[in-house]
């Protein structure tokens, strides 16, 4: 036991003396949460639009101010001819153009049917879709208000309610994603590198010719990273609650437990990588392509898995981050308990045991 403690202490010296690495390890989650929270967001806000108002009446004025008042749009230009619209799109000045034909209010009042045209820049299809939806919603809203007093026959109204995330905040989905990503980086990458570094420096050679059992060496190397991960999880949770206003709806204890489970899985994967490689570069490459990329692409955090072709959907099942991401969303955002995530927890546990068994089997007690 004394050996073990001494080894862990030594490992902490290594980490603490490499100031840059410490800074990256502890600073990275904070940076990522802040960047995702404030800079990288797929919410559409303050999009610049142009309005071509050929009617210039009460109704078009009212719609114009409704659009401008919403947080999605800023009216930046009034155009007076079609070519101007095209020019504005080409310059990239606007994302959406709203065109009211002549006699808009007149048509609305007397023919009960007025038309409005929306032209969107669909070079980014998702944004174009979102913008036209928002604009349509605002226009329909206006229509509802003016028809309020009159009863129209046969109307179906949709009432929407956004559960768990009523404000449709992006933070609700990326906080779990960032957690998965950070834990993966810290645990898998760093564990793999730190063990392989001992091989590269030749210190593993001496360690093997010592009474210390090889497996204890490996476990001792993983302990500091487990602790670092807990610090990181804590700082991510604190930031998301106090800076991004993402609540922890479920049990904090369960959340921490699941995080530790995922951390251990990542550590086991790091160990496995280290048993098969001899250079830090290879270890880093394998950890990044084998773990980090799948985490980003196939966990459902950046791209919805449901929309992927079948082979990718099947592959995504072996990515631990997918299950962890799901668990964190269920527990943290929806506030569900273990009853809702026991299956996913079991899958993660299975992966952990499998990876651990494999790396113990593959760990070399000799040099070759």
């Amino acid at each position, binding site marked *: 036991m004394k050996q073990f403690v001494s080894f862990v202490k030594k490992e902490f010296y290594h980490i603490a003396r490499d100031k840059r690495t410490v800074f990256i390890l502890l600073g990275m989650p904070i940076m990522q949460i802040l960047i995702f929270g404030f800079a990288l967001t797929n919410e559409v806000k303050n999009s610049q639009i142009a309005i071509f108002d050929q009617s210039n009446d009460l109704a078009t004025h009212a719609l114009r101010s409704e659009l401008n008042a919403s947080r999605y749009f800023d009216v930046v230009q009034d155009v007076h001819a079609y070519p101007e619209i095209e020019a504005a799109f080409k310059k990239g000045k606007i994302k959406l153009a709203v065109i009211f034909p002549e006699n808009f209010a007149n048509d609305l009042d007397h023919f009960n049917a007025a038309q409005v045209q929306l032209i969107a820049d669909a070079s980014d299809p998702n944004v174009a879709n979102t913008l036209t939806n928002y604009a349509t919603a605002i226009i329909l809203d206006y229509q509802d208000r003016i028809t309020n007093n009159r009863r129209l026959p046969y109307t179906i109204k949709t009432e929407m309610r956004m559960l768990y995330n009523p404000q449709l905040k992006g933070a609700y989905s990326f906080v779990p994603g960032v957690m998965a990503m950070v834990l993966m980086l810290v645990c898998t990458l760093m564990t793999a590198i730190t063990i392989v570094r001992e091989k590269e420096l030749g210190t593993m050679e001496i360690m093997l*010719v010592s009474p210390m059992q090889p497996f204890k060496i490996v476990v001792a190397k993983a302990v500091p990273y487990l602790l670092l991960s807990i610090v990181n999880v804590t700082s991510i949770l604190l930031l998301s609650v106090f800076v991004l206003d993402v609540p922890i709806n479920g049990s904090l204890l369960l959340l921490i437990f699941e995080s530790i489970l995922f951390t251990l899985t990542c550590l086991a994967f790091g160990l496995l990588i280290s048993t098969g490689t001899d250079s830090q570069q290879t270890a880093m490459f394998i950890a990044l392509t084998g773990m980090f990329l799948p985490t980003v692409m196939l966990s459902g955090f950046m791209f919805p898995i449901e929309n992927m072709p079948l082979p990718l959907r099947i592959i995504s099942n072996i990515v631990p981050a997918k299950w962890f991401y799901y668990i964190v969303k269920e527990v943290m955002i929806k506030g569900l308990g273990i009853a809702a995530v026991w299956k996913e927890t079991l899958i993660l546990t299975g992966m952990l045991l499998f990876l651990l068994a494999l790396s113990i089997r593959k760990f070399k007690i000799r040099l070759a």
Partner: protein
Amino acid sequence: MVSVKVNNLTKHYGKKKELTQALSGVSFNVAPGELFGIIGPDGAGKTSLFRILTTLLLPDGGSASVDGLDVVKDFKAIRHRVGYMPGRFSLYQDLTIEENLEFFATIFNTSIEENYDLIKDIYSQIEPFRTRKAGKLSGGMKQKLALSCALIHKPSVLFLDEPTTGVDAVSRKEFWEMLRNLKKQGITILVSTPYMDEASMCDRVALIQNGAILSVDSPEGVIAAFKQPLVAVKDANMLPLLNHLHHFEGTQDAYPFGEYHHVVLKDGYAAADVSNYLQHQHAQAEVQSIKADIEDCFIALMKQSG
């Protein structure tokens, strides 16, 4: 009693096509408390041999035991009792001298205080710098630290793989004196080195070349086995001189040796014969009869074994 027993050990690397025979049937015994040198050029198989003896590699054939323990079966027990210093400096560069030593002491279930006597002579030289990081030490100091770390658990057998490679002449001499002192503590020491001149510091040496042992004997014994007359020749123009020496009928072998050429003569020839032969082309040549040293023996043994 035998401390280290090596019996017909073989080891090769690589697959069929690019097979490298590292060891081909190596055998020798080392007595307890002996300072045993394994001497041979780079690539002779010294490191492979040490790694097998320290249980880091499995031999392909033959057997070996350390302290009566088999290097394959009893590798765990061996790891408790041997000290090993690899050829490359293998301590933690970002830990201080003291932290390194303390760490290795704990790993071997002991403490610095417990075995301080053993390392006192060596460690006291670097102790003033104990808060310095190992990576910032000079070559000689690194080597002293590495030796202290390998000794801290009072091993019964100490394996030093090329400890003096890349170390200056003064530090090398100092290092061998340290080893002589350690020997007094009853520790069996196996040292490998590519420097022939270090052979005389050992009790016995094994000369190794291409994975095979050429000779195992005391340094004096190795030299005594060299029976042929040997002369050293020097002249202003060394290259033609070597050519001419090769053509001399009494020459068995001639090779450059420092500022001289050494000529091994066939039985019955002497320095005077060489002088006579050189009279015409190399009137100024300096010819003297000398005693062979280990390197001459090594070269002779190497040529013998083909």
